[in-house]
């Protein structure tokens, strides 16, 4: 049960329009790439957050990551684009390997410039939105495409307005983020990430900071627009959303994967006791 009806294909293609070829960054993956995590360990001081975790994120599909708080899901996502540094193991994102030495380029740790370039291929949506408050909505969207990818401003504006249209915020283009509701801010943040046309999208509890009545509009944008044609990882507590949108569900606890599989199997018939206990709590909420 893939919740993604192909008919609703609100022209993802428009997204990868003429201007988006970047600066010869090779992978505008036509064939989607996956992510693999092998025996990764991450500690904060004495606290082990990722405990030799291994998993694989399938190319072009949406993977939902569930688990109790403190299970390491957010950290996992943040390790994928090297916002958090791992201490052991290996993460492969598309063609790029990350080890404790950082993202590698031909076996050697990347310099700051290459790391920045590597990150342009991975969209990240934060729990707390993190919009740039001193820029308008439009300014937030075009900042990186123009400044980082070197695209023409006019092209970026066209693409931005198109995206804002699709997240129903075109009329807010010239407002500052502080004037938007949380749900609107998060939709802008998603659009901002999509401006880079990244082959990978990561969502770190994108609706956890929102009032319940605002989560729907954000989840709709994620499911309907943001994950299409991309390899995506969604850390979430929204079980209904995971069931509907995800192609694969991973349940984490204690810095490891305790259960994974297709949504129906994992969410309805978890095999492990711990997953059953956790999901039972979620269902009850």
């Amino acid at each position, binding site marked *: 049960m893939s919740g993604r009806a192909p008919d609703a294909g609100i022209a993802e293609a428009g997204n990868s329009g003429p201007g988006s070829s970047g600066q010869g960054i090779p992978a505008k993956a036509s064939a989607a790439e996956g992510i693999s995590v092998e025996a990764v360990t991450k500690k904060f001081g004495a606290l082990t957050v990722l405990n030799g975790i291994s998993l694989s994120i399938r190319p072009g599909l949406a993977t939902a990551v569930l688990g109790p708080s403190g299970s390491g899901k957010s950290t996992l996502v943040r390790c994928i*684009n090297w*916002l958090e540094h791992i201490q052991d193991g290996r993460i492969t994102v598309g063609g790029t390997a990350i080890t404790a030495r950082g993202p590698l380029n031909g076996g050697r740790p990347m310099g*700051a*410039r290459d790391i*920045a*370039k590597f*990150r*342009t291929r*991975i*969209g*990240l949506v*934060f*729990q*707390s*939105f*993190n*919009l*740039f*408050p*001193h820029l308008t909505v439009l300014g937030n969207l075009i*900042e*990186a495409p123009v*400044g*980082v*990818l070197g695209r023409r401003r006019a092209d970026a504006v066209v693409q931005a307005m198109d995206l804002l249209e699709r997240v129903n915020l075109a009329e807010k283009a010239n407002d*500052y*983020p*502080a*004037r938007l509701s*949380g749900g609107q*801010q998060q939709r802008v*943040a998603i659009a*901002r*990430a999509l401006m*880079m046309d990244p082959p990978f999208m990561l969502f770190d509890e994108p609706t956890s*900071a929102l009032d319940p009545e605002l989560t729907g509009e954000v989840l709709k944008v994620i499911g309907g627009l943001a994950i299409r044609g991309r390899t995506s990882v969604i850390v979430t507590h929204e079980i209904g959303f995971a069931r509907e949108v995800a192609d694969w569900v991973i349940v984490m606890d204690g810095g490891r994967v305790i259960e994974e599989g297709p949504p129906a199997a994992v969410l309805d018939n978890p095999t492990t006791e711990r997953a059953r206990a956790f999901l039972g709590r979620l269902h009850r909420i």
Partner: protein
Amino acid sequence: MWLSMWRVLTDYSGILLRGLGVTIELSIISMALALVVGMVACLASLSHLRVLRYPATLYVEFCRDTPILVQLIWVHFAWPGLFGVKFTAWDSAVVALALQSSGYLAEEFRAGIESIDKGQVEASQSLGMTWLRLMRRIVVPQAVIRMMPGILNQFVTCLKSTSIVSIIAVPDLMYQAGLIASATFQPMQVYTVIALVYFLLVLIISFAVRQASKRLPRFGSFGAMS
């Protein structure tokens, strides 16, 4: 007595205005220089590279922990011997004032930058910005708006500090006052007038600053914590 003060003001208005012009010009130029140097020193002191951080921190401390009078005389009379640079009185005044202000501004900048939410940096990084770009485009602009009151306070301090440059014969307001006082033998009247002129000048600037800061973009609270 009030009449004689008024006389001082009217009879010597040309000289006083010239002095005032020098005072203002000196404050603006040295402040502009201090803004640039202070920002460089601040960024260097925040760098993770020790070769940048240590000298920058030392520089900032030195600027803040030496009196402006000592700096002025040191620059004017010691730099020729120390560094082989010979400044005019004007240039020495600019350098000394910029030295002093840049130290305080660097601290002001650092506090402002550190007050910016870490999420701003992470969002910028995840959009592929390098450290320099995210500082320039995202963090510093927000910090500057937040630091505006502090920067303007420093400008007022700098303006008041200019009054000591007369000791190396820079013809500022205070210097002209000295000339008038010795020409008229009316130090009481002259220096009272001068005190009032400084007072009014700073009062006007402070008022303008307060008005202007009401117009600064206000972001309000934002993000998840709002």
